[in-house]
Each structure stands twice: as C-alpha cells, then as structure tokens.
C-alpha cells in the first residue's frame, strides 16, 4: 500500500468552529484500488473530514492534495472537476427533475458542455446514451422519466450512486450509502461499490457505521475520535484495538 502513489492525501488537516476543534491534524493518504472505511462515534468529525476534502468547508489549517496537486484553496466545483466524486449522507438530488435528467446533468458536468446555449439538451445523443447506460447499471431504467422526488429512498440512493459514477472521478467518497435503507435495498448498493473497487485505479472512501458493510468491503479502516485520527490499519486489527473498542463501540451509533 505504502509504495503506491496516493491519489488523495491530507496533511495535518484541521478545522475549528469557534473554539471547537472538529477535525484535528488529520494526516492520511488514500491509494488506488483501496477502499478505506472511516469510522468513529457520532460527532467524531467524519462528515466534517469529508466536507474538508470535497471543499464544502474550508480548512483552518493543513492541506489536501489530489493527484499531487494542492487543492486546499479550491472551490467545490473545481475539486469535483479534478476528480473528486462525492455522494452525500442525506439524499442530495435534483428533486423536481426527472431521474434521467438528474443523471444527464452529472454526465454533462463531466463532459463540460454546460455553456451550450443554443443546442438542445436532447440532441446531445452521446450524453443521453451514457446516461441511459448509467441508469441501467444502477437498475433505474424503468423509472427514468419519473421525478427524482417520486423515487423510494433506496432508489434515490441508487440514483445518487449513478450521479457519482457519471463524473468518472478518481476518488469516490460515500457517506453512509446504505443509511435508512430497508434490508433488501442494501445489497444492490454494496454491489455497485464493490464494482467500483474492482477497477483498480480508483480510491474509495467510505464513512460507515455498519460493521457487516465494513467487513464486506473495506481493505483498511481509519478511526476518528473527537476529530483526531486514532487508529489506521486492516479492519480486523483496527477493530480489535482497545482504543477503538472504547471510541467506537463504546457509543452505540443510533443513526444509520
């Protein structure tokens, strides 16, 4: 792992809100072909750590590097364009637009055709074909013309994955992708993530509470506790550490 070139790296990344240090000097590197689960009790700073990487929150100190480029000062869209793909914890779609249009927008973002004013969106056949393909991949072809808001929760999460895939990012960030799903909705989403993993070029970051999901997917686990990185290693070893037992299992994660 250590001799591969990191796709994403954080360096003493910190942010404070008022007097509160939410993320405290977190240094971590993420490698291609590796799925890293980020665990920790509620309020440990996992989602804040994600927000610092994808740019929704600016760091108070420290750096973020993506493919060797310092992206700490870049905006959210600038980071996305450089290969950072993020799915959100709370379903975060374009509710009034059709399922197909949701995906088409993500495909269009990747194709950088957003300033075509006088061509018809429906005439960009290559983008439409790719969108249809992605809907097929996540199993939503039948719902293509329904508004995103009409989808079930599980289907919305699948659509979220389709948007992420559309961007063809180098780094995938999933924030509790199976949260709030019914039992039978979970496996298809996990299969999608496993499929991304099989492409050895991509680094995957996964914030997750569910132990079975971590066991099934993670190559590596890092533990955040009170904003600090307290453990890092292969899942079996990390989960056995006393500090993790205390920090993570000591608190029963009620969400997710």
């Amino acid at each position, binding site marked *: 792992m250590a001799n591969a070139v990191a796709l994403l790296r954080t360096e003493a990344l910190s942010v404070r809100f008022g007097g509160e240090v939410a993320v405290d000097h977190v240094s971590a590197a993420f490698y291609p072909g590796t799925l890293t689960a980020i665990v920790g009790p509620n309020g440990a700073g996992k989602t804040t750590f994600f927000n610092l990487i*994808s740019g*929704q929150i600016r760091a108070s100190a420290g750096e973020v590097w993506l493919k060797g480029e310092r992206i700490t000062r870049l*905006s*959210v*869209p*600038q980071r*996305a*364009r450089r290969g950072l793909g*993020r799915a*959100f914890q709370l379903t*975060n*779609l*374009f*509710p*009034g*637009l059709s399922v197909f*249009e949701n995906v*088409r*927008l*993500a495909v*269009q*973002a*990747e194709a950088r*055709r*957003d*300033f*075509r*004013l*006088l*061509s*018809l*969106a*429906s005439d*960009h056949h290559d983008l439409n074909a790719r969108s249809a393909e992605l809907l097929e991949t996540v199993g939503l072809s039948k719902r293509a*013309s*329904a*508004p995103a*808001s*009409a*989808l*079930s929760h599980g289907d919305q999460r699948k659509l979220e994955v389709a*948007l992420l895939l559309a*961007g063809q990012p180098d780094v995938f960030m999933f924030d509790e992708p199976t949260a709030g799903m019914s039992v039978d909705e979970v496996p298809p989403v996990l299969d999608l993530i496993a499929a991304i993993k099989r492409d050895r070029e991509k680094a995957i970051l996964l914030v997750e509470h569910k132990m079975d999901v971590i066991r099934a997917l993670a190559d590596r686990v890092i533990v955040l506790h009170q904003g600090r990185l307290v453990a890092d290693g292969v899942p079996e070893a990390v989960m056995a550490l006393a500090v993790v037992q205390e920090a993570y299992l000591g608190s029963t994660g009620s969400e997710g």
Partner: protein
Amino acid sequence: MRLLSEDRPGHWLLAALLVALLLVLAFAPFLLPGTKALAVAARILIFIVLAASYDLLLGYTGIVSFAQTTFFGLGAYGVAIALSGGGGWLALILGAAAGIAVSVGLALAMALLSLRVRAIFFSMITLALARFAQVLASEWRGLTGGEDGLTFSVPRLIAPGFHPFASPILGLRISGTVIAYYLIFAVTLVSFLVLLRIVNSPFGRVLQAIRENPFRAEALGFRTIFHRALASALAAGFAALAGAMLAMQLRYTNPDTTLSFSLMIDILLMVVIGGMGTLYGAAIGATVMVLAQYYLQPGLSLLAAAARGIPLAPALFDPERWLLWLGLIFVLVVTFFPAGIVGSLRARANAAAHPPIA
C-alpha cells in the same frame, strides 16, 4: 416541434390557449378594432418578452431579482435618448443596442460581485439598484427629462401618420402603427423561441439544477456562479430589448412606465400566475395581467351599472376597486393553481403518468 425546442405545452388546454393567443396576436390589427385594442396587444407582446426574461431568472434559476424593471428602463431610455436627438432607424437601433449592452454589462458585474454571497444579499442589491435607477431617471433631468420623461418621434415607417398604401388591405388601412406592431410581434416571437431554446439547452438544464439544488450542482462540478451570472445577463438583455420596444411603441418614456416598483410587482405576478419555470407560463401570465389591467376597470363599470338595483353591489363593482378584484383573482390563482396556470395543467397531465411513492 424543433422550433419549440422539443418543449411541448404538455396539456391540450394549454396548447389550445397558446395557439389561440398566437393567432389573435398575429392578426390583431385585422381582428381587433380601434387603437386601444392594438396598443393592448402590443403591450401583451412586450410583456411576454419581459416576463419570459424574468422567468429565466426566477423560474428557471431560482434567483430573486427586483431589478428587472431597471433593465427594462435602460432599454426604453436608450431608445428614448437616442431618438430625442432626432435621427431615424440608426438612432433607434443604436439606442436599443446601447440599452441592451449597458444592461448586460451591469447585470454581469452585479452578479459576479454579489451572487457569490448569499442569495438574499443579491436580492437586496437588486432592490437598491432598482431604486437608484428610479431616482436617477427622475433627477437627471438633462438626460432623462425627469418625471415628465422624454417624448420623441420614431422613424417615418413606424410613425402613426404613415400610410404606405392608398387603399385598405383586408379592410384595414395599414398605418405606421400597424407596421410597428408587426415589428414588435416579430421580435417577440423570435425572442420567445430563442429563450425557449436556451432553457432547453444544456445550459438551461444547469440553471434548473441550480434552482433545484445549488449545493449538489456545485458538487457535480458546475461552477454555478458563472451560470447564474450568464442567466442574469441574458435576462437583463431581453428585458432591455422589451423596454426598447415599449419606448418605440409608446413614443415616450418616463420613470412610471418603465421603472416603477409596481411594474416590478406586475412582472412578478405575471410569472407566478402563469407558472414559474415554464416560459409558456410567462406568456399566459403576461396576457392575463395586461388584459386585467386594461379591461377589468371597464368591465367593472358595466357590472356596476347592471347591478344598480342591488344593494351594496354597485359599490363592490366600482371601477375604482379594480385592484381589489385583481388581488382577489391573484389569491384565487395562487390557491387553486399553486404552480401557476401552466405548472398546474402540466402537473395534472404528469400525475397520471408518475404516481408519487410515499
């Protein structure tokens, strides 16, 4: 359908309404007797462009601006100032072009400077700009004629006294006013089709994405500040074009006809009544509002006269109370058609196809 950018009305009633509107407006000089009717038809056309331009901002992008009248006024004053010094078509075209250019530049600058911060801040800036433009037009008498405004003559071809043909055509004596009307009709039709194309382009889809979820649009990699700025600039440009047409048609311009705050409210109501984010709604809304403004009062006079014997009724239908009735109509529309006329009709057509899952 290509001409409509594949954006079908979506409901048979709406399609029928739009075809009827198009036909009546296309043959208005021949169908509607009198100069008032033709003036109202021209006003409907101009306000279709103005409301559609505002819908691009409010309905499609979700930007709340109160400065649409400012750009409308810039277009009108551009033409007025250019034609006040005499001159013909060249002055008219240059005046309109200058008004449009200044509007686009101003909107771009304003958007790039203030849309970065919170949306409410942008709205406040537009409010300040609208007020500033009003004060400037009232006070800078040397340029704008102050409250009195500017009265000017238009090129001979579109002046009322011009009669190109000795005998009537299809029973109508063609005058410069009719030619001006058809010029406005053509510009409106082209503008509307261009706007329809823009909202159905890849760019237009990004605007809708920004309206639906700006946060997610950014995470997809859209640098939304530029999309918002361009939408503002386009909206300002088309509003200025509408203003230029109004000045040309009225042959005068003053702060009241182009810059007043009540006018801004009218535009807002047109878009809301018609249905935000549908463009066809802007056309329907503009038509409904202009008709109400011109015919509600005379209509009420008739009602009041008819109801003379009934107690209280004449007072209720007093023409002076037309705003009360307009308000009532607005409340009814918002209550029963919360998505506007077009939005509600479309929703009805879609509901059958895609029942929502709870």
